[in-house]
């Protein structure tokens, strides 16, 4: 892909155009186009790469702190207690565990759309259209990062949505059926064989979904490979502009919308702790263990509030699942639940027994 020489400068610091003249400082909101502040391609790449890595490190950090505040129920003192006790590495690891799916989705969406827009704009005469934002992002991204994003999506997306990765991948790398084979007959045969293999893999699930009356599941499993056949290639000129703006807004809205549950996902594991004196009545406390020292176990209760439980009063403790983990479908793909990701599905094969402790049921 080549960079259109008419492309405008992205957000940036005041930059000196080397050689001829010194530009006035450019404000971040300055979107004048075609650009009077033409930046050198290499410089733009460096700048974009810098902001990309800043975002990659900064966004999880900010999100993690936000999550602590939400986890603490908005209470300042509780937030401070969590900040004091939850290590940054744990916090970041916890964040990545729950947000990897969202992160992969965002990257895949940007790269796939970016490649589609990029391929479309490249066909137009130079200077007729400003390159859409996603196209510019996709362009400056190294191929290994795009591949890594798809790999991350492959292992973290629920199996039900995984077929969508096929058209996304084909679009991101602009693969075309012609690349399979130069002659038509072998090409068609290859495509039929690939689709046949896919159908063989998913047919029992598709039939089951049809029997259960789940048209969306059928569409999500059956359509994407067919769409992948036609997704690469340039878009008509009239479509590019509106679609680019629409998808930019849509991706942003979806990210905000999808990040809300991620922010409110607990940082600490949910437990039920049985508390009480020896030979006395006991009480079950449902909540998250913040820390344990020689004297107390500090519990952040699920309903709110912090409990300091003397260590010698802790009788038992069990790990509990949360209700957000309940499945919505009763469908499996060769014994892998459709709502499990590949990673989760493989994990369940390593530890197949899922024991729900009685204490998890008893306390609301």
């Amino acid at each position: 892909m080549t960079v259109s020489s008419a492309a405008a400068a992205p957000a940036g610091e005041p930059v000196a155009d080397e050689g001829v003249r010194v530009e006035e400082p450019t404000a971040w909101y300055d979107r004048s186009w075609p650009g009077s502040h033409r930046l050198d391609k290499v410089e733009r790449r460096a700048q974009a790469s810098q902001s990309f890595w800043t975002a990659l490190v900064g966004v999880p950090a900010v999100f993690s702190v936000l999550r602590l505040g939400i986890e603490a129920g908005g209470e300042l003192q509780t937030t401070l207690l969590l900040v004091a006790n939850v290590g940054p590495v744990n916090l970041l690891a916890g964040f990545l565990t729950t947000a990897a799916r969202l992160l992969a989705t965002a990257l895949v969406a940007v790269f796939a759309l970016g490649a589609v827009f990029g391929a479309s704009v490249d066909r137009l005469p130079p200077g007729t259209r400003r390159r859409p934002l996603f196209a510019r992002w996709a362009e400056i991204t190294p191929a290994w990062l795009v591949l890594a994003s798809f790999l991350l999506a492959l292992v973290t997306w629920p199996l039900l949505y995984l077929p969508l990765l096929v058209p996304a991948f084909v679009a991101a790398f602009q693969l075309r059926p012609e690349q399979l084979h130069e002659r038509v007959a072998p090409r068609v045969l290859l495509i039929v064989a690939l689709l046949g293999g896919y159908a063989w893999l998913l047919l029992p699930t598709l039939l089951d979904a049809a029997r259960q009356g789940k048209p969306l599941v059928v569409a999500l499993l059956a359509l994407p490979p067919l769409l992948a056949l036609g997704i690469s290639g340039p878009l008509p000129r009239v479509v590019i502009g509106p679609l680019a703006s629409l998808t930019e807004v849509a991706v942003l809205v979806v990210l905000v919308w999808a990040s809300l549950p991620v922010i409110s996902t607990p940082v600490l594991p949910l437990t039920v702790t049985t508390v009480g004196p020896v030979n006395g009545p006991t009480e079950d406390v449902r909540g998250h263990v913040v820390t344990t020292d020689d004297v107390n176990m500090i519990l952040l209760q699920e309903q709110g509030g912090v409990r300091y439980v003397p260590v010698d009063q802790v009788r038992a403790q069990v790990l509990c699942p949360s209700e957000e983990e309940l499945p919505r479908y009763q469908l499996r793909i060769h014994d892998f639940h459709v709502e499990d990701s590949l990673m989760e599905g493989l994990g369940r094969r390593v530890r197949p027994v899922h024991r729900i402790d009685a204490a998890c049921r008893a306390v609301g």
Partner: protein
Amino acid sequence: MNESSTGLRFRPVATTLAVALTLILAAAAGCDSRQEPELPSVQEKLRESHIYGQPKLRIGVASNEPLMGELRDGVHVGFDVEIARYIAASLGYEGDQRLEFVPVSTEDRIPALQGGTVDLVVSSFSMTEDRKKLVSFAGPYFVTTQEVMVPIRLKDKIRTIEDLRDPAYKICTSGGSTTEAELEKHQVRTFVVKDVGDCVAGIRAGRYDAVSSDETMLAGFLSRHPTEFEIVDMPFGTSELIGVGVPISDPALRDLVAFFLDKSYRLERAGRASPWQTAYNRTLGPWLRAEKPQPQPLEVPELVDFDDKAPR
């Protein structure tokens, strides 16, 4: 590029269509992932049931039926008791601190449920149409048949229903039981006592010659006196479905009990160790004439639970 001009013209349209459809599918997937499950969950049913938030679960069990429900050295043991423990643990009540076994006699089972002195009854409770008007049943968790137990000295003499009709033999059974009605149907003259234990004591004292009751009950007494009695298989032709009694006012609890019995049934069908099988092997199993599997529970609701994603 070697495409025809028609191909070139249609390609962008196809691409637009594919991109648009993929985006629509992705949006639909996004919305779908935020939906609540359609089916009710175990947790929701628990919240609906009357036991939710109760510190203890009270289960009515028999205390004088060997192998089924018996109080031995202050501890409740038996097949019914083990089934009760499994159901209680599934409902969130595990351990003696959270579980209270209330001894109920045969005739007290329905009043105990109606009066709210127990939350469940697991005590050889036959699921009959008449009883279903007063209490709800979850199950069956066992299917039993009517049998006759004779002392060893008579094991070659009493072999058929015809032999039971012989006035020379005194046949004993417990009052108000389904067995009594069945024997009457076959014109067998019976001596009716309060419970089966009295019949067994009577035979040992020489007052009666045979006792008829359901298979599990007789197996229980056989386990107590293994060298004195033998169970004779007779074709009475009726079978009884044993279920868990639940207050009729609490359909959510009935659904939960049925769901957990079914869970054990499915485990057994999958060839894995089920709580039912463990209970059976530890209690009834060695004493019954033929190996019995867990019967399929009836009217099992579809519920969502945390372990639904686990491999089957």
